[in-house]
């Protein structure tokens, strides 16, 4: 798993990543390498460190040891590296986090304008393109509070796409949604996957994992316990903790 020699197609590489919260060891020697176009589903019990792991990739969390490289850029703690990496990495949150005082269009156009220096006209063109992409262009002039949860999450996806990232991180994007809205968001993610986007998704939607994941990674207590192709992962998990977890998840769904 540890990939000291980064080949051409490696987009993200984590080596021996360590994260503590005080005395609490949240990430333990995490090794992970993600190829261009690869779709990874990350699952595991609550508190296992899934969010912490993906938040380290775009520097929302800092790491105390090990290294993270995105597109050849090492996250060395400099603000230049943070900027460079955040330009390539999009993120979608469980709670949408749309800006309530901006219309859908403004939400999407903001970062291209402020971060990439795109003109307003071009940023809005870009925004319309990606709102169309998530099939919500007709709501462009509305405010987030006027949309359903599923619509808000699709806008959040479009907003991240407007930065034209090389990889998208999803942190339980459907967990805050009413059941009837889960599908529209998953469908959007599936279509994004079909278009070749590199994705790391923290989710317990096992149907989604089966359909799009190249690899499913199971975490517990801050460690990667097991990883495999979905077929193998679901049919013949090796570790006892994975079996227990899958049993619980499948009983719920």
């Amino acid at each position: 798993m540890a990939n000291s020699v980064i080949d051409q197609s490696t987009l993200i590489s984590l080596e021996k990543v360590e994260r503590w919260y005080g005395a609490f060891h949240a990430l333990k020697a995490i090794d992970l390498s993600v190829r261009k176009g690869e779709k990874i589903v990350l699952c595991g019990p609550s508190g296992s460190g899934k969010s912490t792991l993906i938040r380290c990739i775009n520097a929302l969390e800092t790491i105390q040891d090990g290294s993270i490289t995105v597109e050849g850029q090492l996250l060395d703690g400099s603000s230049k590296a943070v900027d460079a990496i955040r330009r390539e990495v999009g993120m979608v949150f469980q709670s949408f986090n749309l800006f309530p005082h901006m219309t859908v269009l403004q939400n999407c156009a903001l970062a291209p304008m402020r971060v990439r220096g795109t003109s307003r006209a071009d940023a809005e063109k870009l925004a319309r393109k990606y709102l169309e992409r998530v099939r919500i262009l007709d709501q462009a002039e509305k405010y987030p509070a006027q949309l359903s949860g599923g619509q808000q999450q699709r806008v959040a996806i479009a907003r991240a796409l407007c930065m034209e990232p090389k990889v998208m991180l999803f942190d339980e994007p459907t967990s805050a949604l009413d059941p009837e809205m889960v599908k529209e968001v998953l469908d959007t993610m599936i279509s994004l996957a079909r278009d070749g986007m590199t994705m790391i998704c923290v989710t317990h939607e096992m149907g989604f994992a089966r359909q799009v994941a190249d690899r499913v990674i199971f975490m517990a207590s801050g460690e990667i316990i097991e990883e495999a192709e979905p077929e193998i992962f679901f049919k013949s998990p090796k570790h006892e903790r994975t079996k227990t977890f899958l049993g619980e998840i499948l009983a719920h769904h």
Partner: protein
Amino acid sequence: MNYKFDFGAVFERAPELLWATLGTFGLAFAGMALALLIGILGVIARTSHNKIARAPVIAFVEIVRNTPFLVQIFYIYFALPLMGIRLNPTATAIIALGINGGAYAIEIIRGGVESISKGQVEAGYALGLHKADVFRLIVLKPALRAIYPSLTSQFIMLTLTTSVCTSIAAYELTSAAQRIESDTFRSFEVYFSVTGIYLVISSVMMGIFALISRRYFSYPAR
């Protein structure tokens, strides 16, 4: 009671009262603008991770909020000249009002900033925005909206506090009232009228605040 009410003297001096009313509005608006500026800059420093930036703001807020406004204005008017800073009454009044209102505004706005979810801020960072943009473009407006009622009632207070600026003979309504009263001895009529004018001033302020709110904070709530 055989006191004869006579508003004639007040009517005669109406233009003076009108001009003084404008003076009050001027002090109030300038004081508010300064208070808002101090409030926003203060909150940036107050919420920074840098202890050296936080400490003076905390001290400033505590000192201002725990001393009388009258003393503050005297301090600026009489003590600063000893340090070579000489200001006219109007400038002194605006600075005193701004500083006093600013200290309260810092605490009020800070409450608003803290009400903004961490998720909003992180979404901004994840999109690649820098700290200053996150504050200015993402946090500030929803934060101001959240505390708008408390901030505006603080600003009404500030408007009424302009009357204390009489003490350094600033150009405003209460000074004019005192002048007219000592010329005419019509205490009741003068202060009755001035009370009415202050009520009008407050109402106008509240009207303006409502308009601003409708213009800037009208986006639908969650």
